[in-house]
Each structure stands twice: as structure tokens, then as C-alpha cells.
């Protein structure tokens, strides 16, 4: 499967984007709305004009029309052809490429079985649910066996459960097909789950490309740090195994428990929204519960960031304005701090 290189690509908000997507990897592009993520996919697919160069396996494909780039593209709005049934939608690309009827039928059947949509074969798009439409669109983009797969927000506008389920299936499928995939999402957790590497885009520029873990522990600049949610990075000075799969990490006087099988942690990252503040001590086991002092309260529209000192360590926390109004905290006062155990990220020594 091919390597994709973008050299000084400019289109709309995107300015001089240089990017290399490795052969067979799942490359996730994240960024806020309007960052230029979809534009990047359109450029690779060749469905828009652009400045700069796109190389596929070292071959300059500028001027090569979309139908000859060997790219499968799952558009954000899916764009299932409304006048065609599920089977005909999937078969479209095969017919367009001149495959014979029998080969088309076999391939369509295989894909419908793989995506578990055989029972939807004769239905039109308006008769399908959101999740079913996504499966049909994915089968359609895979039908001509593309070398490159472009996925634009493939799990957006689905309920949490369906989205999670589809994501795990997608991950399995992408690894099985070993197709070079460029996956666009605005959801960082989704990116982290599925990516071999992540590119963070902001205002048309690629701010950082790295593995998911490095992104959280080593954001290159303020823009990336803001996008990944300004995680609190805690250096581990020691750790001990409490039980199988449970470790107590030391950082100064702070002791944090986290589920981990081993005893060699270097750093842990805690997202500001994974730290809860409370003016009263909640009942329950005292795991990852501390007492801190409010240093600073920063109002940011719908959210509030609170800086809290816990045993000489400053932790950044974040909550909604509504949640903030429900707790009586003031600058300089004591506050109860709870760190959500399951959402901790770590880096090994």
C-alpha cells in the first residue's frame, strides 16, 4: 500500500502543508472545525484544485483525475446515491471500472457480508439508519479495492454506543486490509484509539505529527497543548505494585493509583476535565482523593479552569460553568480533589 506525500500544498485555509503519510499506516488528522482537515482529504483525492504537489508512492499525481488515483473516500455527509439501493451503491465503483457482472455481484456480496449489511441489500438510503448508512458508505468506498482510504469523520453523528462499536470494527478492518488510511476527526479520544500517528491541524497548518502517546506527553506548542486539553503531566519519582494490575505512583508527596501492569512508569498525564473538585468530602473509598488549595479561577465562556495546588504540585482542572456554580469554591480556599483513575495516560520509563 502506498506512501502519500504532500509538498507545499495550499488550498482554502491550508497553507504550505508538508506531510508524509507512511505506507499502510492509520494516520489520523485532528483539529477543530475549519482547521482544514477535509480540504486535505479533498486534495489527496483530487476532487479539488490546489497548489503544491501530491506524491503517491513517489509519483506526482498532480493532474491525475480522482478516478485514477486509486483512492477510496468516505465523505463526511456520506453522499450515498439516493436513487440507488444498498447493493447498487456498493456496486457503483465496480461498474464504473468496467468489472463484469459476476465479479461485481461476488464482490458486493463479500463486502455486504463483511459489513453485516446483507439484509439491507435492496433498501434505499432513506430507509437506513445512521449506522447502517455509514456501513454502506464504507463498503462502497472499499469496493474498488483502493490503495488509499480517506475517511472524513466516519463515526460522527452517531450515538455514543454505535460510534464506539463502529470504531472498533473499523480498526479491525483497517488492520486486516493494511490499506494506507487518512482518518479525519475532531475527537481526540477517537484519534488516540485508532491512530498509528496523529497530525494536529490548526488554522490550515499542521502543528505536530507524532504517535498518540508522544502527543499527550510532549505537545510541541501552546496550540497543540490547548487542543489536547492542556493535560497535567506528572513526573513519577517512584512507584510500587499494590496488586496485579494496580500501581501506586509517587510524585513528590503525591500518591496516585492507576491501573497498570508493571512497575516502570516515567510520566502520567491527567486531563483537566478528569479531575473533580468538590467543596465537601464525598463518601466512598479515599482512592486518588486529595486536599488542595485554589490558586486561580479562569472563566472561559462555557467552561471554567481552576488551578489547584496539591502538595506543592499545581494541577489544572476544568469544568462546565454550571458545574462550577454548584460548588462553593473561592481563590485561596481549601477544596477536595478527586482524580478519575480510569482515564489516566502514562509513559513507561
Amino acid at each position, binding site marked *: 500500500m502506498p506512501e502519500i506525500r504532500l509538498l507545499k500544498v495550499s488550498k482554502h485555509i491550508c497553507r504550505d502543508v508538508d506531510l508524509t503519510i507512511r505506507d499502510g499506516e492509520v494516520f489520523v488528522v485532528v483539529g477543530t472545525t475549519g482547521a482544514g482537515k477535509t480540504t486535505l482529504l479533498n486534495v489527496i483525492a483530487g476532487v479539488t484544485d490546489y497548489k503544491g504537489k501530491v506524491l503517491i508512492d513517489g509519483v506526482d499525481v498532480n493532474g491525475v483525475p480522482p478516478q485514477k488515483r486509486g483512492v477510496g473516500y468516505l*465523505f463526511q455527509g456520506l453522499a450515498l446515491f439516493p436513487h440507488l439501493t444498498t447493493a447498487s451503491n456498493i456496486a457503483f465503483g465496480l461498474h464504473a471500472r468496467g468489472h463484469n457482472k459476476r465479479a461485481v455481484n461476488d464482490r458486493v456480496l463479500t463486502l455486504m457480508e463483511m459489513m453485516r449489511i446483507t439484509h439491507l441489500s435492496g433498501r434505499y438510503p432513506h430507509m437506513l439508519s445512521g449506522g447502517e448508512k455509514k456501513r454502506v458508505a464504507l463498503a462502497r468506498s472499499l469496493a474498488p479495492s483502493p490503495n488509499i482510504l480517506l475517511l472524513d469523520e466516519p463515526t460522527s453523528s452517531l450515538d455514543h454506543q454505535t460510534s464506539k462499536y463502529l470504531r472498533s470494527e473499523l480498526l479491525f478492518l483497517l488492520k486486516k486490509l493494511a490499506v494506507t488510511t487518512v482518518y479525519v476527526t475532531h475527537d481526540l479520544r477517537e484519534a488516540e484509539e485508532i491512530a498509528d500517528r496523529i497530525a494536529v491541524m490548526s488554522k490550515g497548518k499542521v502543528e505536530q505529527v507524532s504517535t498518540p502517546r508522544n502527543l499527550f506527553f510532549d505537545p510541541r506548542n501552546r496550540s497543540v497543548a490547548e487542543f489536547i486539553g492542556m493535560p497535567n503531566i506528572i513526573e513519577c519519582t517512584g512507584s510500587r505494585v499494590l496488586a496485579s494490575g494496580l500501581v501506586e505512583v509517587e510524585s513528590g508527596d503525591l500518591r496516585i493509583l492507576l491501573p497498570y501492569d508493571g512497575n516502570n512508569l516515567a510520566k502520567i498525564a491527567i486531563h483537566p476535565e478528569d479531575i473533580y473538585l468538590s467543596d465537601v468530602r464525598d463518601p466512598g473509598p479515599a482512592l486518588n482523593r486529595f486536599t488542595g488549595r485554589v490558586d486561580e479561577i479562569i472563566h472561559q465562556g462555557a467552561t471554567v479552569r481552576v488551578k489547584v495546588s496539591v502538595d506543592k504540585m499545581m494541577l489544572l482542572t476544568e469544568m462546565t460553568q454550571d458545574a462550577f456554580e454548584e460548588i462553593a469554591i473561592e481563590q485561596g480556599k481549601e477544596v477536595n480533589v478527586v482524580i478519575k483513575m480510569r482515564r489516566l495516560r502514562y509513559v513507561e520509563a
Partner: protein
Amino acid sequence: MTFKGISIACSFTTFGLYAVLILSLFYFFRTETLWDALFSERTLFSIRLSVVAATISTFLSVLIAVPSAFALSRYDFAGKKAVDTILELPMIVSPAALGAMLLIFFNNPLGLWIQDHGVQFVFTFYGIVLAQFVTVCGVSTRLIKAAMDEIPVRYEAVARTLGASPGKAFLTITLPLSRRGIVAASILSWAKALGEFGATITIAGSMAMKTETLPIAIFMRLASAEIEGTVVLILILVSIGLSILYIVRILSRGDSYA
């Protein structure tokens, strides 16, 4: 009165206006005149001529309008605004002026050459078709363009990434999706061509059994004060027009993908 009530009342006012005009024809209606007029060779010729000419001119205009509308809807090109604006020409100038423009053209050297070496348009059946074509071509292009503007360009982009050439994407995606719009444009163009009078009489004249379409026959009867005959011809024109529109409307039902 509620807003819903007011809007429905307005639609019935429009209906009522046309219904009163049609019903008022019956004041001068005579059954015996109907049979005489209906089965006269001259009337049957006018009906046949009108239907055939309107069908040919509509077919030709839709044939040109579909690709033109696609180009105007999808591409940016030099002179696009000029092309887009001139589509309105038949609506800006009166049909008689349009016919006069055609007549003047065929008296220019180029027009004369076309008449001498190609097809004779002035005072012939071809003139009727041309007059109707010129009148409806802009309208059908405008209507089909509106239908194609409604179809997201994304569908064609998807088709392209799946391996379809621009032409194949147009034929397999855009054309079927704009079918309703094309049918509607064809119906309206045909109805407009069937009732076309000003341009037709200017270029093709009003020769009985040669270039006398139904609207021209109506005018000729009225000019010679044959009110009862005029009424019968109007009723024939209205019946043909409305029944075909109604049939096509029924046939194109259930075409929605939503």
C-alpha cells in the same frame, strides 16, 4: 383567519380566476359548432401541427438545455454571466419582437445563405419549430439549472473517486437525480410552446393548412368575428394542454427518494 387559511384562500383565488375565465367561454358555446369545428380538416390539421411542433421544439430545447444547465450549474468559465443573463431574453422581449428578430435575421446575408443552402424557415413548419424553440430554450435551461443546483456536487465527487469519468458521473448520478426537474421543465416548455403565438405568426405567418397552429387559428377566427368557433378552439387548446399536463404529473408521481 389563520395564516394557513389566508394562504389556501390565495391559492383558490388563483384557481378561481382561471376557472371563471374558462367557464365564461360556455356563454358562447354551441354543441353543433363543437362537432363542426372539431372534425373540420382545418382544425384537425391545426391540432396536429401544434402538438407535433411543440413536441419537436421541446425535445430540441431540452436536448440543448440539459448540458447547458449542467455547465452553468457546475463550472466557472469565461462568459458564464453573459450566457446566464441572455437566457432571460425570451422573457424580456415580447414574443412578437422575438419573431421579428428571427425574421430580420433571415433577411441578413447569413440568414439568407442558411435559407438558400439549408432549411427554409420563413413561412414554413420549420419556422414554427424555430419560433417555439427560441421562446422555450432559455426557460427550460433556467428550470433544469435550478434542478441541478439542488443536487449536491458531492455526489459527483464521490462518483469520481469510485472510478467514474466526469461524463459517466453526469449520466449515472446527476441526470437520474435531476429527472424530476427535467420532466417538469419539459412539461412547462411543451405547454409554453403549444400556446406560442407572437413569434410563430411573425416568422411562419398564418397560412391555413400550412402554418396555422391552434393559437393562430384562434386569433384568425376571432379576427373574423367567429366567436363560437373561437370558443371551441380555445376549449380544445385548454383541454389538450391541461390533460397532458395532468397525465404527466400523475406518471411522474412516486419519484421521490426522500
